[in-house]
C-alpha cells in the first residue's frame, strides 16, 4: 500500500528525516512509534503529499504524492496531531461539513463510523470545542472516516487522552480493519505498539527497526532484570558504577537492567549494592518489552 524509499527531509540545517525506507501492506494496522521530535508528523505529511521530501520517493497505492497529489488526496483520510476541526461548529455540523466536502453524505457511510459516532451522538448539538479530549478524538476520527478512505493516517491520536479513551480508541481501530482500511498511526506510547500489526521504531529522523511487536521483543538479546528497593536515584547511580552493567533505565517502580554479555550476574550485583549500603534490594528476571528493545536500539545507534 505504501512504499517509502529512502526519503530525507531537512528544515534548514536541521535534519528531520534521514534516509527512511519501509513498506506498509494493504489492510495493515501499522504503528510508527517514537518520542516527540522523532519526525513522525513530517513523515506522515510527506506520505499525504502535504510536504515534499528533499530526496527519495514515496508511493501510495501506486500514486506519487509529488505528482499525483490530487488523486492521492481522494483516497486518504487524515487526522492531524492537534484537534483541527471547527470548535464553534457543533458535532453534527462538523461531520456533515466534512461529508459534503468529500462529496458524500453521513447516511451513505454511516456503517463505517457507527460504532464510534454513536458514543458522541448524544452530544451532537454541542460545539466541538466544548467536548472532552476523548470525545474530540472520536469526532475527528469520524470526520476522517466519513468518505470511506482506503488509507487512514492518524497522527498521535491518543496523545493527551485518558487511559480508558485510549484503549477504546484502539479497539475502534481494530474494528476498522474489518472494513479493509489500511491504517498508519503514530504514537509516543510504547505500550500501544503491541496493539499494531507491525511497528516502525523511530528516533531522531531515523528508523531503528520495522517488525511485528512480537519480533521486536524477541529481537532483544540477552536477559533482562528488574531491580527495586530503596532510593531509586541512588540505585541507578550505584548500578551504573558496577562494571558488568550494560544498560540501566528507570521503568515505573523498577529499574530495567541488562549485563554486558547478556548473562546473569545477579549475585555479584547484589553483593556490590550491599557494599554500597543498599540492603533491601531485590533483583528478578523479567520479560523484555518493546520499550526495552527501543532503549537498547537507541543505546547502540
Amino acid at each position, binding site marked *: 500500500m505504501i512504499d517509502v524509499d529512502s526519503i530525507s527531509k531537512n528544515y534548514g540545517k536541521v535534519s528531520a528525516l534521514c534516509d527512511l525506507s519501509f513498506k506498509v501492506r494493504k489492510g495493515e494496522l501499522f504503528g510508527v512509534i517514537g518520542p516527540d521530535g522523532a519526525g513522525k508528523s513530517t513523515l506522515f*505529511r510527506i506520505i*499525504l*503529499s*502535504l*510536504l*515534499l521530501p528533499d530526496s527519495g520517493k514515496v508511493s501510495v497505492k501506486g500514486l506519487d504524492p509529488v505528482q499525483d*497529489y*490530487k488523486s492521492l*488526496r*481522494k483516497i*486518504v483520510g*487524515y487526522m*492531524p496531531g*492537534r*484537534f*483541527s*476541526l*471547527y470548535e*464553534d*461548529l457543533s458535532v453534527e*455540523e462538523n461531520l*456533515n*461539513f*466534512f461529508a*459534503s*466536502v*468529500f*462529496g458524500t453524505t453521513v447516511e451513505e457511510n454511516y456503517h463505517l463510523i457507527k460504532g464510534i459516532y454513536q458514543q458522541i451522538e448524544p452530544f451532537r448539538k454541542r460545539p466541538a470545542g466544548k467536548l472532552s479530549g476523548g470525545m474530540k478524538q472520536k469526532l475527528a476520527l469520524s*470526520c476522517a472516516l466519513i468518505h470511506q478512505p482506503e488509507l487512514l493516517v492518524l497522527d498521535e491520536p491518543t496523545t493527551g487522552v485518558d487511559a480508558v479513551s485510549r484503549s477504546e480508541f484502539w479497539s475502534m481501530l481494530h474494528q476498522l480493519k474489518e472494513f479493509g482500511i489500511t491504517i498508519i498511526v503514530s504514537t509516543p506510547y510504547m505500550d500501544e505498539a503491541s496493539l499494531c500489526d507491525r511497528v516502525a521504531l523511530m528516533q531522531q529522523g531515523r528508523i531503528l527497526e520495522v517488525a511485528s511487536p512480537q519480533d521486536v521483543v524477541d529481537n532483544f538479546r540477552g536477559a533482562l532484570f528488574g531491580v527495586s528497593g530503596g532510593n531509586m536515584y541512588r540505585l541507578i547511580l550505584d548500578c551504573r558504577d558496577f562494571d558488568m552493567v550494560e544498560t540501566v533505565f528507570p521503568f515505573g517502580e523498577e529499574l530495567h537492567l541488562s549485563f554486558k554479555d547478556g548473562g546473569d550476574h545477579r549475585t555479584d550485583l547484589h553483593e556490590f549494592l550491599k557494599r554500597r549500603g543498599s540492603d533491601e534490594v531485590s533483583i528478578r528476571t523479567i520479560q523484555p518489552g518493546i520499550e526495552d528493545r527501543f532503549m537498547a536500539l537507541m543505546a547502540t545507534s
Partner: protein
Amino acid sequence: MKQLWSFIRKESRHILRDKRTLAVLFVMPLAQILIFGYVISTEIKDARIGVLDNAGDYSSRQVIDRLVSSGYFMVQDYYSNSRQMENALRRGDIQMAVVFSPDFGSDMERPDGTSVQFIADASDANTARMLVNYAEGIVAGYELQSTEVLNQQNTPLIVEARMFYNPSLRGVLMSVPGIMAMILILVSAMMTSISITREKEYGSMEVLLISPLQPWQIILGKVAPYVILSLVNAITILAVGIFVFHVPMSGSYLLLTFVSLLYILLSLSLGIFISTVAPNQMVAMFISLFALMLPTILLSGFIYPIENMPVWLQWFSYIMPPRYYISALKDVMFKGAGLLVVWKEVLVMTGFLVAFLLLSIRNFKVRLE
C-alpha cells in the same frame, strides 16, 4: 457545487457565531460615520474673534455686524490696544483678530481706500486660512454695497468664488465616500485574510488541503459571506449619510452599487493575497491595518487633499485602490456622473482586481510550507 455551498454555509456559521466580532462589524461603520459627521467637522461656525477697533466709527461697526450676522463668527471681546489683542490671541481665547485702522470710515472715500487687518491663529493652519477667506468675502461684499452708490461707473473687478457640489463646504460630505472606502477595505480585506490564516493557524487548513476541495473553492467559499457583509455595511453608511446628514445622492444607484461591488471584490482579492503571504492571524491583521487602513486614510484623498502632498507621495497615492473608489463615489454621488465619467476609475479598479487575483492564485499553496 454542493461542496462549495456547504463550505459557504460553514463559513457563514463561523461569522454568525462570533457575536462579538459581528457586533463590531456592524457597529463600527455606524460609529465611524457618526464620529466623522459630528466631531471632525471642517465647517466654520461661531468662530471666536476679537476686535481692536481703532476707528470706532459707523463703518467699522457695520463691518463687525456683518461678520457676526453671517453666523460664522462670534465676537469674544473688544480690545483697546494691540497688546491685549495679542495676548488674547496667544492664549487661544480668540481664533482671529480684526483690526481697524484709526480713520477706517473716512478713508473709505479716498481713492487708495482704507484698510482692515485680519490676524489669525495659524497654529491650526487650515482653520486660519478658512477664517480669513470667509472674513475677506464678507468684507468684500460690504465694500461693494457701500461703494456702489458713490462709484457706479467704476465698479472694481470682483472675484466671486462659488463652491459647486458642496456649496456650504460641509465636511461630512467629504467623509462619506472616505468612510465607505475605509470600512469596506477593512471588513473585506482584513476579515478574509484573518479567516483564511485562522485555518492555517488552527491546523484545519491541513485537513482542507487533503480534501478534494479545489483551491478556488476554498477561496470562493471564504470570500462569499464577506461580500454580503460588506454590502450591508455599504448600505448602512450610505443610508446614514443620506438620511441623517443629508448628503446628496444625485447619481444612479445602479452605478453606485456596481462601483461599490467592484471595490468590495477588489478588497477581498487583496485580503486573499495578504492571507497567502501571512503565516498567521496576527501578521495578517498587522498587514491589513498598516498596509491598508493607514494609507487609505492618509493617502487616498480621504482627509488630506492629494494635490497638497509632496510629489513622490502623490505618485504613491496612485497605487492606493481606495483613491479611485473615493473619486468615483464622489463623482457619482455629488455630481450625478454616469459611467462615461467614471470609466477610468472602473478600469483601474478592475485592473487591481485581476492583478491581486492572479497573484493570489499563483501564491496559494497546495502543500504546507
